[in-house]
């Protein structure tokens, strides 16, 4: 187990290293950071001087090495836009993004688990059909559109909820539901097919034959085993959720990392772009790591080594 954790940690560090390399190369190969920093009014001399002082004339791998050294000290540079350390800006916004994604996750589970289980147990029933419609519909509905419709109905027409911004639960409700429902579609579908798979197996028949109540057969024997592929997919799903958060935050003016990232990208604020992608990558990798480690808990047959 310990060896497995260490190996997975090393792997994560390697991937993170890759993320920094890719973003660094992307930024350096496609534009001049000095010109971006000084803006359109800068003269060529200004840019040339800044290039020298920023070390941009050194070989690219020297620059990358220097960049990594700074990262190791937690220094992502200063945001052009805000004039503050980039990493600090990102960390400041992180609670808002966590608030949104956790709300979305809660809604996701509250919708997808019951729906996935019921539609598998009552296969081809009206609930199963409706759930299929839900899955197809919400997969086809990008969050920015469901967000717009939500604002139109619940904020403008009915006046029940605020249209944008962050405050109490009232503000969280709409973005959370929009993002949660969107991500629940896939989860429902996966859980349904996984449940169908498990419920057809011998040990479920044995459990029924033993006279165990159907409810417990479904929950203890069915659901618990059906959960494994769902958990496996959580890693990829989580990345999608974070991506959804980027757009949801933009639609609802939610002051999180996603909106900051869009702002940074739109303004070519390179230090901020690097810091946001790095933090996103760290979060997603951590979740993936936790998911991998949780296999052993959910499925005792899995031996991690």
């Amino acid at each position, binding site marked *: 187990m310990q060896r497995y954790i260490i190996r997975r940690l090393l792997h994560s560090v*390697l*991937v*993170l290293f*890759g*993320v920094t390399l*890719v*973003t660094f190369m*992307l*930024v350096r*190969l*496609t*534009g001049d950071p000095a010109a971006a920093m000084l803006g359109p009014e800068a003269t060529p001399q200004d840019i040339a001087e800044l290039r020298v002082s920023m070390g941009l004339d050194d070989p690219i791998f020297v620059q990358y090495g220097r960049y990594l050294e700074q990262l190791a000290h937690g220094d992502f540079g200063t945001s052009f836009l805000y004039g503050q350390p980039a990493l600090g800006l990102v960390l400041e916004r992180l609670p808002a993004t966590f608030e949104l994604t956790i709300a979305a996750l809660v809604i996701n589970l509250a919708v997808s688990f019951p729906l996935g289980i019921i539609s598998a147990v009552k296969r081809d029933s009206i609930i199963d059909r409706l759930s299929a419609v839900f899955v*197809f*519909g919400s*997969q*086809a*509905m*990008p969050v*920015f*559109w469901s967000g*717009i*419709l939500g*604002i*139109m109905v619940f904020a*403008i027409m009915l006046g029940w909820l605020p249209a944008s911004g962050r405050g109490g639960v009232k503000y969280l409700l709409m973005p959370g539901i929009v993002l949660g429902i969107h991500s629940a579609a*896939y989860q429902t*579908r*996966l859980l349904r*097919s996984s449940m169908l798979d498990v419920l057809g197996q011998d040990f479920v028949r044995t459990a029924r034959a033993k006279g165990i109540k159907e409810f417990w057969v479904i929950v203890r024997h069915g659901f618990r085993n059906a959960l494994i592929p769902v958990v*496996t*997919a959580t890693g*990829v*799903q989580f*990345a*999608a959720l*974070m*991506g959804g958060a*980027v*757009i949801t935050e*933009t*639609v609802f003016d939610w002051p999180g990392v996603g909106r900051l*990232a*869009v702002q940074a*990208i*739109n303004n*070519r604020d390179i230090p901020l*772009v690097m810091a*946001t*992608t790095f933090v*996103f*990558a760290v979060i*997603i*990798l951590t979740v*993936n790591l936790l998911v991998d480690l949780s296999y052993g808990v959910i499925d005792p047959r899995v031996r991690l080594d």
Partner: protein
Amino acid sequence: MHATDQLDPNNLTQAGSGRATTTLAIRERPSAWRRLLRDSKAIAGGIILLILIAASVGAPLLTSYAPEKQDIRNKLQAPAWQAGGDTSHLLGTDQLGRDLLTRILYGGRVSLFIALIATLGASILGIAFGVLSGYFGSFTDTIIMRLVDVQMAFPSILLALAVMVMLGTGIRNLVIVLAITSWVFFSRVVRADVLTIRHRDYVEAGRAIGATHWRLIWYYIAPNLVGTITVVATLTVARTIISEASLSFLGLGIQPPTPSWGGMLADGRGYLSVAWWIGTFPGVALMATVIAVNLLGDALRDVLDPQIDASEN
């Protein structure tokens, strides 16, 4: 017609010479195409998609307005059935007086075209890397799969946004970006398929008679990938349509005044309290298209039966 559905009886009876009535009526599985035509999801998806394609390709025949023609005097006109609207603009007009229906139709052209080309690009890239990874294994595999891991480690929309800013906007760059963000889905699935195929007996036999790598890949392995690739491609088209709309919504996709569903919805966001139709109808078109493509993809998956992990899509 039905003769083709059954196994040729001559082949079966030759061995038992004379016993011509060996009625081993082994029904061959109907062809994939035939099964697809019997699938209600495929039919529904196909019909919706055909209508949408016909409407967007035939846009100039269906509407007399130009998608970019402004008419400020008639701005924010309501749809025909609502007070303030009339039949000259069925779905109303936008903030610049442009006919909404016209823009939706022309926007569909752009969306579908971009999604198809980007998917083609992603599939070429993804298949190439997937085959290399699965066939050669070891070092090549490690490098490619680590690359996939890196890409999977951050939200594709962020990657797309970042690359879009670096490359600059424009349809060509948009296609490149969308292809870059979806090749991983192909490569993972193709790699998994190749891994199971490459050690099959007939491939080993091919190798034993001295077939080159290229020949083994192209003639022995590739034909078995067609089903999987078709399904992934269809589902990728749907996802790409949404990605493109998202990028356009954020202002980095298709640039105005060229109509795009995502861009129109972004416009609509500013007029939600006065003109609900701008923020609604482009979304309906988008949703209908994605549902249609997904229905088709789902049906194809059932029919071609590849072992695709649905998590990819």
